[in-house]
């Protein structure tokens, strides 16, 4: 227990100190936190509940747009703003900017949670590969639909209000928004997985028909879990909107083949269905991505493809799964004769 507390204290301290110790890596670390958030939330349904969604990026994109619409719409008509397609036409005060952020980010989370709550019962009728493809279709369709809505800037996308901060400070602010969200998410999941709710989604993963036969409210648990994960992804999306200054629908917001796939790779790398797996996977993947994207120019997608093939063929259970296999005692798997009465 105390060893754990110490570990967490060190990690939090490192998280706070990092952008000041390594200022040139602030953007890199911010993206790392984004990866951790999307990996952890993907694992809520994919790893812990057995529903492999390929469409969680839908909540990321929707979070971006919701955050933008709130931040702009609080003070200006959104249609005119996007029509001007240059945010310079309107001037935004510092207090307007921060208010937009403070309301926009949680607002985006809530809206995405609500979306998941509404579409959940529809999609959870699908099982296995059908769920994966169905959710992917949702993300692709959403991108196409949004890029045809002129009010949201169409295919051009949206320019965000300008930050009143110097870019270097803005970077640090964005880093702390991601890191704060990530820390809250991790703490939440640590608790969530220890409740009966957490056990119920594990039961759904292991044998949903059995869970139904035992009277578990399967649809209720599935929908709420997806909605909670959507809240966090949506908030991360809104933070990204502020970070990117300008974003467009297909390549940035509903980027199914980039972030939409990366989050799955992170989880597979670290180990599905564990608390630490997605975090460790996100770190490994982000480093891998930076290295290949910077040093094997043009070959990065090949390297990524190879990585996926290697994981899927040789390390299906990821790093944590491998450890569980070779060191079961670390995970409390043991024959225990103590206290038996028969």
């Amino acid at each position, binding site marked *: 227990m105390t060893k754990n507390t110490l570990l967490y204290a060190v990690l939090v301290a490192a998280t706070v100190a990092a952008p000041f110790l390594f200022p040139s890596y602030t953007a890199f670390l911010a993206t790392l936190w984004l990866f951790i958030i999307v990996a952890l939330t993907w694992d809520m349904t994919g790893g812990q509940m057995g529903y492999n969604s390929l469409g969680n990026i839908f909540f990321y994109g929707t979070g971006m747009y919701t955050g933008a619409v709130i931040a702009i719409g609080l003070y200006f008509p959104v249609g005119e703003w996007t029509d001007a397609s240059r945010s310079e036409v309107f001037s935004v005060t510092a207090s307007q900017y921060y208010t937009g952020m403070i309301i926009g980010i949680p607002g985006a989370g809530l809206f995405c949670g609500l979306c998941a709550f509404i579409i959940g019962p529809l999609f959870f009728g699908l099982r296995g590969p059908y769920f994966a493809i169905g959710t992917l279709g949702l993300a692709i369709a959403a991108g196409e639909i949004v890029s045809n809505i002129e009010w949201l800037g169409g295919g051009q996308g949206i320019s965000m209000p300008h930050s009143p901060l110097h870019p270097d400070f803005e970077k640090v602010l964005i880093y702390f928004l991601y890191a704060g969200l990530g820390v809250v998410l991790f703490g939440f999941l640590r608790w969530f997985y220890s409740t009966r709710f957490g056990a119920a989604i594990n039961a759904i993963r*292991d044998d949903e028909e059995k869970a139904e036969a035992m009277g578990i409210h*399967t649809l209720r648990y599935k929908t709420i879990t997806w909605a909670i994960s959507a809240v966090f992804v949506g908030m991360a999306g809104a933070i990204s909107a502020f970070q990117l200054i300008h974003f467009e629908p297909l390549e940035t917001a509903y980027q199914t083949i980039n972030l939409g796939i990366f989050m799955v790779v992170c989880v597979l790398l670290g180990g599905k269905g564990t608390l630490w797996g997605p975090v460790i996977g996100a770190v490994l993947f982000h480093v891998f991505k930076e290295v290949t994207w910077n040093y094997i120019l043009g070959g990065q997608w090949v390297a990524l493809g190879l990585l996926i093939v290697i994981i899927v063929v040789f390390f299906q259970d990821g790093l944590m799964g491998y450890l569980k296999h070779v060191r079961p005692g670390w995970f409390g798997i043991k024959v225990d004769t103590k206290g038996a009465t028969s």
Partner: protein
Amino acid sequence: MSAIIDVSGVSKSFGGVKANTDISMTVEEGGITGLIGPNGSGKTTLFNSIVGYHPVDGGSIRFEGQEISKMLVPEIARLGLLRTFQQTRIYGEMNCVENMLISLPHRKLSIWDAFRRNTSEDRERAEHLLDFVGLFEKRWLQASSLSFGQQKLLEFAMALMNEPTVLLLDEPTAGINPTLINGLIDRLRRANTEFSITLFIIEHNMRVIMNMADTIYCLAHGQMLASGKPEEIQDDQRVIDAYLGAH
């Protein structure tokens, strides 16, 4: 005694296969009722119809007087009418204790209870019941690593954890070591008397079912062939013929 399950005129067919034809039967409250019949005679199909696993083609099924033939599987389970599976189903990636804890009666849990952790009483009860079926030492092992027979015992313990009013058991002794069967019979009886759970059991092992049941129903070719006390069934020429294939 009164009928806690009342099946009347239930039919179910799969394409051309008439798995159940016009079945009527009752399960008496507090007792042990048996269901026998050759392979493919429609026993599991009848269980599936009762617990809402598939819609029936016709007829009515009542549980404690309430019509349940149109209800969904989890709803029926939450009424306290539970089943175990012939193929045995447990949560493979969870350990035995976790399997037990998730089997707490969900009809008694509100959504807010779900956001709590299990209490120490829950844990004690889980360990007590694992001890009851003889799996205490294996309680921290992943359920998928247990043998088939052990999984069968775990599934039985999980069902007890759920505190059902009626428990439908599909071949509880299949795959259990013959030397352990007497112990299992004893536990089933105690589930009936000590935990006052009404049992409805499908069983191929004649010695087991003749020993335990107060009333036995026999299916053949999807039809109710005979019913009565164990000694009557044992001597019934139609039942003997059905089992010997002279039907």
